[in-house]
Every structure is written in structure tokens, then in C-alpha cells.
């Protein structure tokens, strides 16, 4: 999607290794979000950010941490990946507290 990119697009990693996913935006939006998508669950919020260095937990935050040192970048880290974290991860941005989100194209993460 225009203005928001996720990297990498695909990653295979081993259980117990750390993994960092990156979300980069060029829209200068205040809010950024990390979701995971799993069959039968829709999308579930992991963490979100409402400004530089301002983050909060979402519905499924255990095992994940985030950082936002710049407006444009929001990093999601799996400190020690587990097979249950195999999923598709989406980043989203929002300009304000209203309006819908703009989503990135996703990162498919496989933990073996």
C-alpha cells in the first residue's frame, strides 16, 4: 500500500531465535499498529503506538515487544520465537483517532 511498507515480506526462523519485523510509513501519521492474522481469528492487535516512544499493549501482546524511536518506523520484536507465533503480521497506520486504518501488505512469518 502506498505510504506504508513492511519488511521482510517473508521470513522463516527457528524456535528460540529473536526476530524483528519493520514497518515504515511516509505519511507522518501519529498512530501505528501491529496485528497478527490467523485463520478463524481475523486480526488481533498486538501493540500500538500513539507517538514516538509512546506504545501500549493490545489483545495478544505476550511474547512481543515494540519500539518507535522515529515517527516513520515501528518495530515488532519476538524476543524468542515460538511455533505459536507463526502467522501473518500486518502493520497499520492512522492519522488520528477517527477514520479507518491503512494497512501494509503483511509479513508472513514461519517459526520452525
Amino acid at each position: 500500500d502506498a505510504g506504508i511498507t513492511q519488511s521482510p515480506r517473508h521470513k522463516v526462523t527457528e524456535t528460540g531465535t529473536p526476530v524483528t519485523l519493520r514497518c515504515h510509513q511516509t505519511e507522518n501519521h501519529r498512530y501505528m499498529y501491529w496485528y497478527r492474522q490467523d485463520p478463524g481469528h481475523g486480526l488481533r492487535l498486538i501493540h500500538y503506538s500513539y507517538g514516538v516512544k509512546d506504545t501500549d499493549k493490545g489483545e495478544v501482546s505476550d511474547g512481543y515487544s515494540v519500539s518507535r524511536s522515529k515517527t516513520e518506523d515501528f518495530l515488532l520484536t519476538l524476543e524468542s520465537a515460538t511455533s505459536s507465533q507463526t502467522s501473518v503480521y500486518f502493520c497499520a497506520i492512522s492519522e488520528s483517532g477517527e477514520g479507518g486504518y491503512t494497512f501494509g501488505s503483511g509479513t508472513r512469518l514461519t517459526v520452525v
Partner: protein
Amino acid sequence: AQSVTQPDIHITVSEGASLELRCNYSYGATPYLFWYVQSPGQGLQLLLKYFSGDTLVQGIKGFEAEFKRSQSSFNLRKPSVHWSDAAEYFCAVAKYNNNDMRFGAGTRLTVKP
């Protein structure tokens, strides 16, 4: 916390037929409601949103949705489906500031020629 139920996991309609996708939400106050569409391998795209006012909202690609508070529903409709509408559709509900948007499990739409 707010929640969303999409009762239909998979729906198949013929091209040119009308479409209605169901969405029920649970939230104590007036919700912010959204419909998103996801094509295979892609992220989600916003179709339409409801915050307040007219309960019938128009979106992109010819979609509309109607908010019915008495039924806690926000169903998505389209009068004539095109083959390109085949995708997965997600309903979502949020509180004010929508920093905790909750999504339904999705409805996969198949369009028959």
C-alpha cells in the same frame, strides 16, 4: 471489551446477484464500525465506516452498510456482485480513538460466473 461476530465463514453468490454480509457487534456505547476487504496476499483495504449520523453509509466499489442499533448489526450490501469482488471481508468495531479495533473472523466471498 468490544467484539464482532461474522456468522458466515464462507458465502458463494453468482455474478450479478445481490450480496449481504452479516456483522454483529458487542459494545456498550455507540461504536465506530468499519468494513474492510482483503484480496489474497494483500493487506486490508477500508470499504466504509460509520461513526454517527445517517445509518446507511456508502463506501467504495459500490458497497453500502446499514447500522441498526436495535439489532447490534452493521451488515454490508451490494446490489450486483462482480467477479472482482471475490475476497475476504472483515467487519471491525472500535471505541472512540479506535486504538483497540476488534475484527471479526472474516467472511470469504466466492463469486460464481
